[in-house]
Structures are given as C-alpha cells and as structure tokens.
C-alpha cells in the first residue's frame, strides 16, 4: 500500500489530465480565435503540472 499522500497526489494527477482533456477538446471545438489563444494560458500550467508529477 503506497502512502496516503501518494494516492492523493495520483488523484490530483488524474484530475489534471481530465481538465487538460476538457480544455483541449473545447479549444478544438471553439469557433472563437481569442478563446483559443486564451486557452494557451490554461493549458501550459496544467501540462507542466503533468510533467512535474511527483
């Protein structure tokens, strides 16, 4: 059994991946280019969270 904090961390990671999926899906569906540009500022921190998964 891994320590509790690793489990909580893993849940955060799953949540991050899900949020990224939603944001990227909406970016591809969006009909507004400004919305798509703003999405960059949302995707970057969440993607970095995934890269730095602990």
């Amino acid at each position: 059994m891994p320590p509790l904090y690793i489990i909580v961390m893993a849940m955060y990671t799953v949540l991050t991946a899900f949020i990224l999926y939603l944001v990227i899906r909406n970016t591809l569906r969006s009909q507004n280019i400004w919305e798509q540009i703003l999405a960059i500022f949302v995707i970057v921190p969440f993607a970095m969270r995934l890269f730095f998964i602990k």
Partner: protein
Amino acid sequence: MTINHRKTGWAAVAVSLLFSVLLTLNYVQMWKDDLIIPGPGVTEVKWLSDYEPSLRGTLGDTRVFVMEGKEPGATFLVLGGTHADEPAGWGAALILVEHCTVARGRVIVLPQCSNTGFTHNYPQEAHPQFISFPRPDGTKRTFRHGSRTGNSAEHWPDPEVFIQYPHKQKYSGEECRNPNRAYPGRPDGTFAERVAYGIQQLNRKEKVDMQIDLHEGQPEYPFINALSGHPRAQDLVSLAALEMQMYDLDIGAEVSPPSFRGLSNLEMGDMFPDLMAMTSETVNPTQGKIRGITDEFLPVDGIDAFYDRAAQLGYLFAPWEGGSPLKKRIGRNMQELQALCVALKEVTGKEIEFGRIPSYEDLMTNGVGYYFNPPPAEPADPGFRALPGVWRLFTQR
C-alpha cells in the same frame, strides 16, 4: 477571409505544449548539481547521505567537504546554503572549499546545506535561477540561486500549520520546508527534518566543537549584520564581534531567543553540551520587499535605487553607502570565520587555524570570482544525479 477554427485550435494546443516543454526543460536545469571544484584544502568529499542514508538518491543529498589541517585541533562545521537565496552564505562556504586551506584542526563545509532549495525559486519573487561570477582570466563561474524553502517536489505536502518537532511551536505551513525550523530533526520525519537529522548525525559522528550557519536578511529587517549564538556561546559571540571591530567591521552580538524553536544554533547547541553554535546574517537586498529590478546582477552587485532612497529616509537597519555588493557580504563572512576561531581559542582553549583564507580587504580588492577555481574548457553536462518523487521510479539504479 474565413478562419478555419479547427486548424487554429490545433495551433493553440501545439503552441501550449511547446511552451510547456521549453519551460520544463528550463526549470529542470536547476535539478542538476552545481560544478564545485575543490581546492588544495579539501582532503575528503562526503555526502550528507553518509550520515542520514534515507537522503541517498534524493535532491536533498548534498556534498560535505572535509578540510583537515596538518596539525591536530578542534572541528568547525560551516553551514552555507541553508537558505539558497542567501548567496553570501553559500558563496563564503564555496570560497572555503575552492580556495582556502586549514593549518590546524578540521573544517567541515556544506556549501549547499538545503540542496532541494537550490532546485527551484521562491514563488512570486522573480529571482534569477543562476548567478555568475567573472574571473580575472575572463572565464566565469555560475551557480544556482535558489529558494528559502525546500522544493515541494521532495517535501510535498505542506500542512496548513507546521508544528515544529519536538517543541510543538506553530509556524505557517510552508515553514515545513524551511530547513532552519526543522532542527534538531528526526530520521522518520518530514524531508526537512531528515536533512536536519543528517546535520545532527554529522555533529555527533565528527564531534563538532563549533558550528556556524551563514544567513542573510533583508535590509529593512532589524536582525542584520549580526552574529547570534546559543546562550552557551554568548562569550564567544561577544569576543568574535570585538575581533571583527579590529577590522572596522560592525557586527551586532546577540543571543538566540530560546522561545524561537527549530533554529540550527539553538537546537544543536541544546543537543550537544560542548558545541558552540552560531548564526550570522549579512544584508541582502534581493530578499528585501521594497527592491526594484530583480535581475541576475542584483544579488551580486547589491545596487538598488529604492534601497538608496530608503537609506536616505533612515528606514534601514545597516549602513548602505555603495549598496550591499556580494564581495562586501562574503568579505564580512570570511573575516567572521577567522574571528570565530580566535574567539574559540580565547573562550575554550580549542584551536582551529586557517592557512590560506582571504580577508575582508582581499574580497573588496579582488572580488568574488577571483577566489573560484577556473572552470574546465569544455564543461561536461553533469546530468541528473537525482529526480524527485515518482520520477525516481524511472531513474533509480
């Protein structure tokens, strides 16, 4: 002209991922160990994990440089980089390692005591990641400029309230990652407590007689240009301050308040009845709250227009003419290390003597880079010695 939103959508995603990858590659550069080139005084290089094995293979493991003199004498432990954004502390320790020699006794130096602090920057301070020191031959040496607290990639999670062990004093949650609240430490505690426990074990195994923890503080903070010690070290601190005044260096002599728990000098002094434990502080505008532009030159040159104005208005607690350049702060520390050895002999009869060591005047004349060894012509990429957390599962050998 019509816009194909499917294409612009993919472009936005691609740009995001590109930025993420570039920022990640930039950030992980700080996970690599700095190049430290031991000079003629270093007789042995150990790791903190030799004293606390649970640190092996983590970002918290750090180099321990032993400098043994020819003549027998006492043991002096110099802690630099407890706070990685206080370069006068780790800079002075690095000059010991790269340039100085010991004639009598033994000096043990940890230039990057809190190594995970060197692997990231303090959030929202816009501090530089690296600072450089030009050498007289035109080359330069570059070191990481890190954070006051350890990296949450190793220290996760922060509690809401950090309860200090074993005194139960309450601090804000992020102080859980502050190595100078973690003493005396314990082997099964938080990451910072294990680092502190490593230092405790080092003290025990090497029978340290005197310990100094080199810090810096912001210019508007009352406890700067000061030397503070465990209550037992009060005489030693006063004598060292007098000795500093012989070189026209003013330094406040203080006693570490016994109600302020977790500090290296107080906790290690309480634990080891023969240890003389001290902390000192120089003036660092990069930590200050009213500073202006914070680039890679501010920590080194120490010149800041807002602090000039604050000094004119009398708001600062230390003299400010000419700013607070690093050569001046490190020069003070070099003079202080020598003053402590003089005072130790006066108070306890124990002897530690440096062989080659620069004075305050030397630092003011030559600058800091002069005392660092020349870098190799083609520096090799040090690679990653350790990666934090889950990354470690993929890299552990």
